[in-house]
């Protein structure tokens, strides 16, 4: 399967899971599980920074139109798409000049750097998104609790997804 087809299928699956599964759940007023932004975190290393921004914006906008609050997710997704290359640069293994794998994963980066990578971007995503919602309605305490609890449940979901669907990734060699 080519890279493009794989990512398109992923995009559709993530959006459907978010819209029809997670948005329909009512766990608690503070706990809203989010998983769709993992699509942006899973994009290949080879995507240019401008491409990342565009994909991030479109991903957010798609979810926005489904949840009928236009702008919130688009803004948050653009932010994490912009920050993604910086975070990867910080966490890149120092001994090799290039990554041996095609996209960020626990196998490509190691579990700890990968989880730090996911955690940083998750916090940015939820903080910014909740902040935009808080500007319109809500108290400050609600805002803080929501950021922490939503980040917690999202991290739990990401780890579950990583364990349930380990991505088999080919080692990138010079011959290929």
């Amino acid at each position, binding site marked *: 399967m080519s890279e493009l087809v794989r990512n398109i299928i992923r995009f559709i699956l993530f959006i459907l899971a978010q819209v029809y599964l997670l948005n329909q759940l009512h*766990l608690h007023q503070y706990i809203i599980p989010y998983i769709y932004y993992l699509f942006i975190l899973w994009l290949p290393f080879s995507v240019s920074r*401008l491409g990342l921004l565009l994909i991030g914006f479109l991903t957010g906008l798609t979810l926005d*139109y489904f949840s*009928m609050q236009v702008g919130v997710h688009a803004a948050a997704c653009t932010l994490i798409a912009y920050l993604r290359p910086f975070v990867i640069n910080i966490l890149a293994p120092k001994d090799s000049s290039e990554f041996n794998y095609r996209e960020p994963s626990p196998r490509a980066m190691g579990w700890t750097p990968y989880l730090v990578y996911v955690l940083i971007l998750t916090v940015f995503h939820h903080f910014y998104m909740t902040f935009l919602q808080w500007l319109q309605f809500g108290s400050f305490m609600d805002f803080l609790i929501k950021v922490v609890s939503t980040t917690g449940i999202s991290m739990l979901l990401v780890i579950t997804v990583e364990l349930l669907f380990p991505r088999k990734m080919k080692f990138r060699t010079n011959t290929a």
Partner: protein
Amino acid sequence: MRNIFLFIRRYFTFLAFLAFQAAALYFLFNYNRFHRARGLGWANEITGRINSNYKSVDDFFHLKAENQRVHRMNDSLLNLLPANFMKLDTSTQLVRDTLPYDTLGNYRRYIWRNARVVYNTVNQQKNYIQLNRGHEQGIRDDMAVINSDGCAVGVVVNTSPNFSQVMSLLHVQSKRSVAMKRSGNNGTIEWDGKNPLYLTLKNIPKSDSVVKGDTVVTSINSSFPAGFMVGTVAEIVDDKSTNFYVLRLKTAANFFNLQQVHVIENLQFEEQTKLLEETKKRIDNENRNSP
């Protein structure tokens, strides 16, 4: 000049980031002011189609409960049929055009249309409901939506040709006028964005003797027809600083499994809003003219 181009080339990604952010924030805050989102009209057509496909599968699992509700509603309506009553005097009969009047000569004020819910959430702070009827089927903004139990659900805020969006009562910006069934006192219901089982009712004066379990119904001041159930009083908060109660309402409609709803058109709505605006204008003018 060259430096400007160099600057743009160097920071192109950052500038693109700012542009995307600006676009997203423009969408977000523009929506709040005018109740409308950019492109929500055509996006509504697409998401509506996908949602109704999904819903046709999902509906299957709720058929039984929905059937019971519909049956109950039918039962109560059948009781209202004229065939159930007998007239004492049948010798005279007045024949009229039946559309604007009923048999007693009353004007028709509300038209009911049925619709199906294709998407609904309860876990956001701003919950919207998407219906499979749009302005081609006669749905307009500000029409009231009532579920198959006859309980208030929300108000239409946006329509596309075949789908429409309803601002649920579970929306932090929703403010609807309601009345206590027992005393007829008017109040406003809001939602605090927390528990989807409870609404907040304000502006009921303390002279009203409210008790737990009192019924709250829709009032004539809103786009709803009067007398449809909104909820029951679950908790009375005695706010010492004002002369009004703050009441917690248990919602009468179950927002978790909405399926079939009625959209109600108020035929006098335009006349009412026009009168209201003209009155406001006239009062303003008088205030301006008087010293």
